[in-house]
């Protein structure tokens, strides 16, 4: 029903909203906070902790944008969205930016009218199975009942994978992430398929996490990135360079701990980055010290990664593809000048 109402909401929005609106940056500044669409149920990416404080990689991405715009990382309001409602909410203007582990793909940029900014997590789709099933490879999953979220790239990838390997599958499609996980843990499906990071997050909240194993096959590319609406280039640049600022900071060796000392650095790259030598901020329409605020209040990409999904968290993810390019990963920022 929620999905239907989301569809109706979108129709209502498209039918009723006035045509021209001011730039998103002006709107955001006028209301004093950024409305961000987040997952709400995904541990490690976007979920409130026991005290009700929002935590996760996507949440920190949103906080970085707020730090860049306001110099205050807490000026964010969160809207939890399901996989099915997320793009509708963004298109209709209900949220200013979507930080909800959404995969960047061609048709979402074109027919959905969205722009994806810098990737904040390079993911891939995998399979989570109970150890008791005795399966060692995804190639042994012929005839399996597969739990999958609707409206995701995952739903398409898994159909592609079983088709291309000539195997049969029976999808069990439930919209609500926790309901889906419950059905999987109760044995309704033989495997749960999703992005590997999500599988790790789901396994972390299993009744007995050690009973489940993620299969080695990664069957797709899932570059997860924040998204904005088409047609507001300035806002797109701000979101993009907020994420890039975290990556560049890590490369420059700037952390939330040492950022104040780095203000005194003689390195012109660091000076330009932190706004000591001005130019970058103004060209984005932001404070000259916006990158300083991002690093000071949220941290560099490495810090954010380790805090939310890294080795010491229940997700225990390796940096892998998400390491800096200098360490063999894909995280690479264009120069800040």
């Amino acid at each position, binding site marked *: 029903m929620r999905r239907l109402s989301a569809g109706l909401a979108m129709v209502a929005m498209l039918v009723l909203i006035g045509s021209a609106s001011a730039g998103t940056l002006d709107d955001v500044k006028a209301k004093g906070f950024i409305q961000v669409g987040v997952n709400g149920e995904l541990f490690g990416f976007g979920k409130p902790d026991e005290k009700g404080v929002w935590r996760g990689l996507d949440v920190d991405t949103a906080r970085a944008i707020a730090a860049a715009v306001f110099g205050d990382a807490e000026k964010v309001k969160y809207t939890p969205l399901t996989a099915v409602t997320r793009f509708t909410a963004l298109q209709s203007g209900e949220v200013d930016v979507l930080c909800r582990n959404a995969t960047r793909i061609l048709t979402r940029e074109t027919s959905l009218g969205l722009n994806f900014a810098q990737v904040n997590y390079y993911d891939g789709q995998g399979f989570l199975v109970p150890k008791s099933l005795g399966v060692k490879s995804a190639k042994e999953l012929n005839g399996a009942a597969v739990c999958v979220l609707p409206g995701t790239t995952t739903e398409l990838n898994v159909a592609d994978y079983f088709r291309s390997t000539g195997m049969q599958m029976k999808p069990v499609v439930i919209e609500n992430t926790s309901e889906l996980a419950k*059905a999987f843990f109760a044995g309704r499906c033989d495997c749960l398929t999703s992005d590997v990071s999500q599988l790790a997050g789901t396994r972390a909240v299993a009744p007995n996490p050690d009973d489940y194993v993620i299969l080695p096959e990664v069957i797709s590319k899932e570059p997860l990135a924040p998204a904005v609406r088409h047609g507001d280039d300035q806002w797109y640049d701000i979101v993009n360079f907020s994420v890039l600022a975290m990556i560049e900071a890590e490369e420059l060796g700037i952390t939330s701990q040492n950022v104040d000392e780095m203000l005194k650095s003689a390195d012109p790259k660091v000076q330009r980055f932190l706004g000591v030598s001005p130019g970058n901020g103004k060209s984005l329409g932001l404070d000259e010290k916006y990158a300083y605020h991002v690093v000071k209040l949220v941290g560099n990409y490495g810090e954010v990664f380790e805090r939310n999904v890294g080795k010491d968290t229940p997700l225990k993810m390796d940096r892998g593809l998400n390491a800096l390019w200098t360490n063999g990963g894909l995280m690479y920022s264009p120069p800040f000048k």
Partner: protein
Amino acid sequence: MQTVDTGATRTPLLNDPAKRSLIYQVGVLLAVGALAYYLVSNTLDNLERQAIATGFGFLEKESAFEIGESLIAYSAADSYARALWVGVLNTLKVSFVGILLTVLLGTLIGIARLSTNWLVSRIAAIYIEVFQDIPILLQLFFWYAFFYEMLPAPRQALNPVAGLFLCNRGLIFAVPAEHPDWGWAGWAFLAACGAVYLLRRWALQRLFKTGKTVPLFWIAVGLLSGLPLLAWLLGGAPTAMDVPELRGFNFQGGVSVSPEFAALLLGLVLYTAAFVAEIVRAGIQSVNRGQTEAAKSIGLKPGQVLSLVVLPQALRVIIPPLTSQMLNLTKNSSLAVAIGYPDFVSVANTTINQTGQAIEGVALIMAVYLCLSLLTSALMNWYNKKMALVER
């Protein structure tokens, strides 16, 4: 119409009721038209500004997603149109079976509610109160969780009788293996139905002419079971069965009823039957007691009192609200999305999300439910007319 123009009695335009109402109606029409124009043009503007594609062209594209259960052959290589059709058929399947079972169960409970047996009527009353008062969505979650939590995994499936398995993947049972003879038996059954219908007409005519009754019930049972049996025997009496077998993770072969379908059907039937029971009770109580007494006094048996005197009159009261319950059941079946049954709304929503064509998708959803509802209403109205009091 003749206008009298005497000059002295000419009424002002707004004081003439006919002209006044005409002016108001034209005004309202213009306002509605202008609003519609504004909404449509604004929508198209917004769509264009956001660079969202429009039109129904997406229906022919490859859907690229799988659907859990389908009445027709379907794979991810088929088009969105076929995927949506699979969804429509799934909605029809659960609605059709659901309506049949609901009417049956609701009537039984409605009659039980009026039973002179204290225990029976109390149990019926409790049933009605409990199922009427719990939101349908919660009931669906309950039944779905009941199926997947309570039942064992496929490898430990319950096997109460040979060829029937019960596990958290559903109810899987053996069916006769394909053989042309089964088709002939099906035709024989249809022929038997036709024969029974004609026989009933003849028996009624005979009853009115001569007052003699025919043991129609037993003849019907004999025909309906005998003719297919005969066809089956003549065709060589094939006995091969398609027995489900555990291969890999799941059962292959046989016919399976998924937990999603079972949970949705059970939830809808139990919920709606509570309302139908109240409608049936009210309908029966609306028939004057004198009718029952009169029927008894001319020597009709209790079953005949119900079927010949009370029900035909009660049905006139029962049918209109019953129709609206049928429509409710059909519409409530869209709650399937919550428990993963791939009904039309579920498939349409996935389509909307994968293509981004929300307006077209929602329009399709509304059109399909409108058609289903109008069709149900038309059928029930026809039946209602047939049952209505014929005034002579």
